[in-house]
């Protein structure tokens, strides 16, 4: 499987929902502590080639593809801004928008796959903001968390529901029509770095935490987790449910591995890939190609491979 080397440390990777062979990578210089950033748009082939690259003044912590426009990418920048890039335009015409409202770093961004016109940004200023591409200002601000919000994820079936994962050890479920959060899940005893919804059961949500575990929750009975997945050696950085199998999910961790889980099964860990030599920070499963995984990490490498194969195989 071809590998792509980024000049900066990788932070996030996302497959395009329009093109099977395209993906975007968010990178930040100097491990994201201080430095520039770059958004790469990669094309898969016999080798992985770079279609476009956009430089930013500060590190890029996360990005997402637009669900309605095939070449738009929203990037979460470490200076608190969100920048929208159009990969069909040359770099000189990019970014096409810059939205700067957050007081601290923007750490997560997610596009609404049902309504396809709005996206969320999760920031270290404890807030989540709702935006649309055509408006220069945010539509809503959700301010309840007591600490940094690391990630926000739209519900795959309900256009108005989303979840946020925060360093205050809670995951909150929100409805954009309500003024405040509708549910508070005290999911872990430590910071929660990521959350994602089950694409095939809209009431199941997974949370990944610094306590090295992933917990799967049913919001209808949220006091007890459905299952607790242990196996990572260090904090779990990101968790992603499979778009093709209801109980399958991928996770990446500071223990440099990407793991695949099936939480309905007794022995839930069904795959483990240790190809990275530094923190594995981003992972994604392709919506268009079943079983296709991508991951990136602080070792400045982007791997794309099929589940069941060796990512490092030539």
């Amino acid at each position, binding site marked *: 499987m071809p590998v792509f080397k980024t000049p900066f440390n990788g932070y996030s990777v996302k497959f395009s*929902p329009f093109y099977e062979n*395209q993906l975007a990578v968010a990178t930040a*210089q100097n*491990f994201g*502590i*201080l430095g*520039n950033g770059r958004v790469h748009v990669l*094309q898969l*082939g*016999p080798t992985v*080639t770079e279609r476009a690259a956009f430089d930013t*003044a500060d590190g890029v912590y996360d990005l997402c593809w637009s669900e*309605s*426009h*095939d*070449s738009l990418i929203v990037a979460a920048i470490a200076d608190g801004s969100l920048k929208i890039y159009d990969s069909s335009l040359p770099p000189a015409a990019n*970014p096409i*928008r810059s939205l700067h409202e957050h*007081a601290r770093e923007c750490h997560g961004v997610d596009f609404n796959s049902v309504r396809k016109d709005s996206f969320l940004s999760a920031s*270290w200023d404890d807030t989540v903001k*709702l935006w649309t591409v*055509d408006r220069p*200002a*945010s539509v*809503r601000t959700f*301010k309840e968390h*007591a*600490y*940094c919000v690391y990630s926000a994820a739209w519900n795959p079936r*309900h256009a*108005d529901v989303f979840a946020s994962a925060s*360093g*205050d*050890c809670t995951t909150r479920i929100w*409805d954009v*029509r309500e003024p405040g*959060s*509708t549910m508070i899940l005290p999911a872990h005893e430590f*910071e929660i770095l990521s959350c994602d919804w089950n694409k095939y059961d809209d009431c199941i949500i997974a949370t990944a935490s*610094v*306590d090295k575990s992933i917990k799967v929750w*049913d919001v*209808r009975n949220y006091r007890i987790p*459905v299952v607790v997945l242990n196996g990572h050696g260090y904090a779990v950085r990101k968790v992603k449910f499979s*778009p*093709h199998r209801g109980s399958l999910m991928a996770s990446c961790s500071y223990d440099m591995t990407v793991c695949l889980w099936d939480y*309905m*099964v007794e*022995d839930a860990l*069904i*795959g483990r890939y240790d190809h990275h030599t530094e923190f594995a920070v981003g992972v994604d499963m392709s*919506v*268009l*190609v*079943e079983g*296709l995984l991508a991951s990136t990490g*602080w070792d400045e490498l982007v791997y*794309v491979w099929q*589940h*069941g194969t060796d990512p490092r195989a030539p």
Partner: protein
Amino acid sequence: MATPSDAPPSSTDEKPQNPVSQVTQPTNDDRQDTKVEGVKESSPTSVFVNSEPIREEQVQNAVKFLSHPKVRGSPVMYRRSFLERKGLTKEEIDEAFRRVPDPTPAVATTQSVVTNQDGQIKSSSNGQQQPPAQVLQPTPVGPVGSSSKMGILSRFHWYRAVFAVGLLAVSGAGTAVLIKNAIVPRLKSWIRKVASEEDEEGPMKENNAKPNVAEEAAAAAKAAAAAAADVARASQEILITKSEEKRYFEELINLLNVQTNEMKSMSNAVQKLEGQSINGRITVEEQANQRVSRTSSRQPYTNGKADADSSSVRSLSPPAPVEPSAAPHPKSYMEIMAMIQRGEKPSNIREINDAPPNPNQPVSNPRLAPKPKPWESNQAQNSSLTTFQSQESSNGSNYGDNQLNGDDTLPWWQRKNVRITEIETADEQKFGSPNLPSNERPVQRSSWVPPQPPPVVMPEAAAAIRQPKKSSYLSDDQLLSQSTDVTDELQRITKISESGGAVDANGQISGLQSAELPQEENGSYLET
């Protein structure tokens, strides 16, 4: 299932009154009947709402917590956060706050979410300003985190230092005056007394007989010795006081030195303030790997290995927190952190202007229509087949770069691993069960239509997927039925995919999903 005490599904306009309506019993009773029906035909949004009634025990525990004097002194935000982490619902927390006579008015403001049509977030953050202002938000004046506390302490030290210096000076002057006024005259009187005694003894000596001369001489000598001793004692006392004064002044000088050191550290902290956003970023990045003590807000731990500068705002690397061990960071990460600590900027950073060159330019038109997701309804999938064929040509242009035009072979990322499938076929004979779909997959089409289970490395897991374990932890009957529903769905899904993905029966797949599949694309946020 706990009876939902919130608004019935249809009345979304009642939802904002949720916190209030939870308490009033009659409202709950009125909704009892509608609740039962509401559960059965629950609309999507009601599932994502807390449907439990208020637990009195939890509220009482919260009231006890909030009434504790130490808790009273903490910011409201932290109290709320603590209760949330203990699993209390919003309604229970609000009720507890209501019961505790809380003088701070921040209860209402902490809950408010400002809908900013004009992008004014300052107004909402003002309500939050008081609790996190001191430490969390970057204040323009005070340093962040521990150095703010240091600043306060150092200010105290200043006062204390000035006070101490004044006190010492006064005491030193007082002792000097005392010495001059009290001890020296006493000394003089002692000498005069001795001298007068000698004089008195002189005439007495002449009257007395000669054999008393020796005695008197001895007495005189004794008196002289006593006087000398007194003088010596007095001089010693003077010396002692002088040495005390010296000590006082030395202590004073030490204190001044301490003050200058603190001044230096404060200037260092000010320097660090200039790179404060970096510091905060590092702080947060490290918090991801360590436990954050709630009482100390964002004060990070310092690494045992690294520099233990107490005035440092951030930790140099994620140290081992209470339970989960922190991941070791790469060496160059440590180097960069050390550079930032010293105030140096890494040399590889460029000045980049990433502002949009034309922010008002309208967004270009998309070239592709959105594709339906694999988990969306079957009807969407059928339509997707037709749209996919129309898009194949446009996808072909992408493949052109890869020189796959007109090539029948599947790109490597779509090809399932042949090696794995060979293993699978071998295992199939072993297990005797048709494990996975046969090798003649439709390779000409993209494999997202229809979804097939990927080749699993561990056939046992695949077999286990067929019969997922009955969840023993779900004791509730309803949940058991839910889990069996899920297993039925799984079995149905796998059967369908095995048959080659013939999704002709609409009812088959749509039956898997919940009945109320809302396609809510009609509404828009902007219209509310």
